[in-house]
């Protein structure tokens, strides 16, 4: 049942009245339409949306310290997030079937481009999430360019289906802001299993645009299901293996684009992996070498930002991506760092020493080339604790995808005389005791 713009604006106006007096909203709505209503309501009432990368108990405590007036906007009756909760009003929820469309289209609200729309967070390295400011105008500038790259402005009415959550920067931009800013439609559902993706694709009119990740696309192809034609498929969060890219294009009768970006910068480049190896930057965005580091700046980017991947400029607006930096951890589109994970591990009472390590491929290897999603492992010195107790404590602090696999209890860590802890030595220790 399509929802018209008039209905959306009416729902936004109703929801805006329910958000209270605070200035910060953790928009936890799982349904993408509900999320968009919450976002619209927050923008209309001058509130800032908080988009943390994860919702562990520890991060919720930190969010509340960061913004004491934060409320959690939820569309679930049994939401267990430990913040003051606001239920999206039932009147602002779409009906299961049929509802009279609003009589006429209310004037479309004008949002100041300078308005502070959101804080997004990265995990940082010392334990506290690092906030990054997003202004409405720059977010919209960014997704307008995305829409150009994705051919969403060709006059046809596209429907966007996404397997990623609206709260993740990539999902926020591609599945919520881009359609809202360009008059295209998006699907409220977030299909997970291949059979769910197929049925959602089949339920919406063409041309369809599928916003996804290598993990979901690999599962979708592996399912062996017959799939409807998809005009455009977009993958982000991790490099897509070349063979998978070609298979996606063939099986979905689609054009596959990859998007490169980060939480701090938003989306900054695309490429079509079956045709080109180089990425093309957004207009105005540039990469700057600073010593051994690469920084991105210009265009819609709020502040010059250090990039956590190995990027090689290839002339003009082109670059090559050679994998992640050694400290970066990127699993299923969630980013952390070994330094952050180590900090969380060593903050557990009873842990005397402990270190995470990359449990699989070397830092430069293409993640998607591996059969399994790469994981992190950890070696821990904690004489009074069991592995299960350590895991339970970590579960409070870090996203489940970063829980160590394996987690090994050891007598001491293999530090060099200089006190360094080489990744290779940790992997060797893990291999010797498991």
């Amino acid at each position, binding site marked *: 049942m399509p929802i018209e713009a008039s209905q959306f604006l009416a729902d936004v106006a109703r929801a805006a009245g329910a958000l209270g007096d605070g200035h910060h909203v953790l928009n936890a709505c799982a349904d993408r339409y509900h999320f968009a209503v919450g976002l619209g309501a927050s923008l209309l009432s001058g509130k800032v949306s908080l988009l943390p990368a994860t919702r562990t108990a520890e991060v919720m405590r930190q969010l509340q310290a960061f913004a004491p007036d934060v409320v959690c906007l939820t569309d679930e009756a049994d939401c267990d997030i430990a913040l003051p909760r606001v239920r999206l009003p039932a009147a602002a929820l779409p009906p299961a079937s049929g509802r009279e469309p609003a009589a006429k289209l209310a004037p479309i609200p004008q949002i100041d481009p300078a308005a502070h729309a959101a804080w997004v967070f990265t995990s940082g390295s010392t334990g506290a999430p690092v906030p990054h400011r997003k202004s409405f105008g720059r977010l919209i500038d960014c997704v307008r360019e995305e829409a150009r790259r994705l051919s969403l402005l060709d006059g046809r009415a596209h429907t966007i289906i996404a397997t990623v959550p609206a709260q993740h920067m990539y999902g926020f931009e591609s599945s919520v802001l881009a359609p809202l800013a360009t008059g295209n439609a998006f699907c409220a559902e977030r299909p*997970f*299993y*291949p*059979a769910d993706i197929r*049925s959602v694709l089949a339920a919406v009119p063409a041309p369809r645009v599928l916003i996804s990740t290598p993990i*979901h696309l690999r*599962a979708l192809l592996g399912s062996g299901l017959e799939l409807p034609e998809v005009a455009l498929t977009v993958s982000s969060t991790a490099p897509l293996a070349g063979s998978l890219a070609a298979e996606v294009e063939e099986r979905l009768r689609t054009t596959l684009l990859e998007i490169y970006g980060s939480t701090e910068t938003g989306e900054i480049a695309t490429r079509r992996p079956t045709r080109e190896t180089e990425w093309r930057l957004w207009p105005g965005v540039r990469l700057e070498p600073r010593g051994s580091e690469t920084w991105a700046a210009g265009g819609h980017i709020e502040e010059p930002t250090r990039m956590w991947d190995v990027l090689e400029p290839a002339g003009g607006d082109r670059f090559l991506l050679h994998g992640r930096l050694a400290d970066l951890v990127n699993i299923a589109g969630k980013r952390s760092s070994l330094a952050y994970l180590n900090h969380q591990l060593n903050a557990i009472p009873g842990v005397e020493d402990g270190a995470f390590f990359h449990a699989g491929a070397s830092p430069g290897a293409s993640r998607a080339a591996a059969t399994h999603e790469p994981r992190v492992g950890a070696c821990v010195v904690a004489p009074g604790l069991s592995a299960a107790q350590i895991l339970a404590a970590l*579960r409070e602090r870090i996203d489940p995808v970063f*829980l160590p696999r394996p987690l090994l209890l050891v007598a001491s860590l293999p530090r060099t005389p200089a006190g360094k802890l080489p990744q290779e030595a940790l992997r060797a220790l893990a291999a010797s005791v498991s």
Partner: protein
Amino acid sequence: MSDKVSPLRQPSGAPGITALSRELAGLIVEALNLEVAPGDIDPEASLYGEGLGLDSIDILEIALVVSKQYGVQLRADSEENVRIFGSLRQLAEYVTAHRTK
């Protein structure tokens, strides 16, 4: 509460379920590269969270294995979905009821 100790109850279910649970345990350990022996997975323990500690990437991986091996397509919108990953035994029961190969 009774002060009598109740006798240990054998888990219910047909022998086929037990065999399939064991087979699934082997497939899951192999697919996810887990550091446990298939025989050590408690067929009654939750696969999510505190039990085997699987996350959503793992669940997608298991869905793939189950579709290839048994022709069962898992769906998030079925009410059974919450139960399916409640334990290895429940997954085995679901596969038994829906397998096409």
